[in-house]
């Protein structure tokens, strides 16, 4: 008796997510340990040593102020990094063909990889949150804002990693974007400072950086204050997620970078 398409899709999707989880756990020394060590160093150096001399930012201790930004920075880099390395690795090693010959539709393959990226983003973000609790008190002001910003941001950057992997032809091309675009945008996205501290022209430039909205919305969830309008921030996140999902799906369906 033929298997129903709905069952193929559900089992297929969960299999991709399970496989991604197995990969995250199998190479934990590359996926979980480094971001934890890096975040700990940030907390020690910026938060504890330098932060003590900075004083209050927006009425909060510096450590308390940067903690949500550092968690979000970890979520961004890990969501992006998981999908770009996993998908490009599958493409490079040709085992992506296991999925391409299967009856899973493209939207589901994309969703599976994005869910895998989000899983790593949330997993590593949770570990960094636990680390943050050793250094500062972290109360949740608005739990829905925290969850929505967390999930939308990790979805957006998982999709970004997916598109990067589609176009990449070698390993250099999967490290170029994170190094030269993602990291500068993250550092300039208000992780370590409030944009209100910047001169007017720099504030204007900062508002063109989408990461500012993600970090600010996430920080609002913890501290109850934000550098940006929250409706605009969530609108940008939802818009970016929808637009990027649509673009990635079209690219995948056309076989860009994966089919002759």
């Amino acid at each position, binding site marked *: 008796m033929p298997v129903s398409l709905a069952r193929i899709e559900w089992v297929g999707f969960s299999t991709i997510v399970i496989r991604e989880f197995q990969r995250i756990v199998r190479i934990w020394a590359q996926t979980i340990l480094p971001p934890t060590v890096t975040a700990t160093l940030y907390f020690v150096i910026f938060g504890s040593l330098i932060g003590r001399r900075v004083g209050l930012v927006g009425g909060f201790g510096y450590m308390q102020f940067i903690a949500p930004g550092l968690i979000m920075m970890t979520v961004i880099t890990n969501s992006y990094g998981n999908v770009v390395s996993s998908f490009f690795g599958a493409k490079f090693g040709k085992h992506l063909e*296991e999925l391409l010959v299967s009856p899973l539709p493209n939207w589901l393959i994309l969703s599976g990889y994005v869910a895998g990226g989000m899983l790593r983003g949330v997993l590593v973000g949770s570990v960094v949150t636990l680390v943050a609790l050793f250094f500062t008190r972290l109360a949740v002001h608005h739990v829905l804002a925290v969850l929505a910003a967390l999930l939308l941001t990790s979805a957006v950057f998982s999709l970004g990693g997916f598109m990067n992997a589609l176009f990449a032809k070698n390993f250099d091309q999967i490290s170029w974007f994170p190094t030269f675009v993602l990291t500068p945008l993250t550092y300039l996205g208000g992780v370590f400072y409030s944009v209100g501290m910047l001169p007017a022209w720099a504030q204007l430039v900062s508002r063109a950086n989408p990461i500012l909205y993600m970090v600010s919305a996430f920080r609002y969830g913890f501290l109850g204050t934000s550098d940006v309008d929250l409706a605009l921030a969530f609108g940008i996140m939802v818009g970016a997620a929808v637009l990027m999902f649509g673009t990635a799906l079209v690219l995948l369906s056309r076989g860009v970078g994966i089919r*002759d």
Partner: protein
Amino acid sequence: MQALSLRALTKVYKNGIQALKGIDLEVQEGDFFALLGPNGAGKTTMIGIVTSLVNKTSGTVRVFGHDMDRELERAKSCIGVVPQEINFNMFETLLTIVVNQAGFYGIPRALARQRAEKYLTKLSLWDRRNSIARSLSGGMKRRLMIARALMHEPRLLILDEPTAGVDIEIRRSMWEFLRTINEEGTTIILTTHYLEEAENLCRNVAIIDGGRIIERDSMSNVLRKLQAEVFVLNLAAPLADAPAIPGFRTLLADDHTLEVEVSRGQNLNEIFAYLSGLGIEVTSMRNKVNRLEELFIRLVDQSARAAAANA
């Protein structure tokens, strides 16, 4: 029912190379079908299109009646593929690879584990189920790809050079296994460079060259088209010259080896009778080349000459 039906299938790559020039091909359900052709003939492109790894330029593909343009998922769920190149994750265990592959076809994990035991055992890999795939030998990797392709129990199994680099003993055990699953109802399409393999296993054959099917018939009919075969006779005592056997062309390859060309309708007894009369003792005999190989080379040469004449 047709397991596979291709109509006017063409493929032009971005660099302008026309890999397929209007392929029409049908493979019946239950068949063990050989797809032969020289390197670059278009076999892998054709398989790539059927398995949706390559986008076609035009034409239609139907798998068990499911049109790949309209019912892609249904068509793909009927196919299992063993590609030419190793394409599993080298860092995963065998069990993980096959269980996950089943999941991509909607097989729940509990059932997938049962099937993993069944197929890994049949392919003598169960003892290695927890090994990392990278640690397997070449032959084991090939068998793992067959086990993986069978996890969703496809109705159509496509094997692209499945025994390349596999030693004789394992190749023969793989042949037995493939024969069994074909007898159990799985339609098999096989491409191979070992023409002996195709002759042994397949009931029907298509030969593709230059992006076109140049021969399509039953294996027995194709072999019947062969007009002459060369037999190699090993002699007990050395000869200085090739004996002139009336009606046969002979050649002395070395002082102990006589080659005799036998045309269709000629009788081997005549050769032995004549040689016995001359007191020449034959210790053994074999075909100079595989019969299918001989025909294959002839057909491909004809196709190349025709293409050159049309150019």
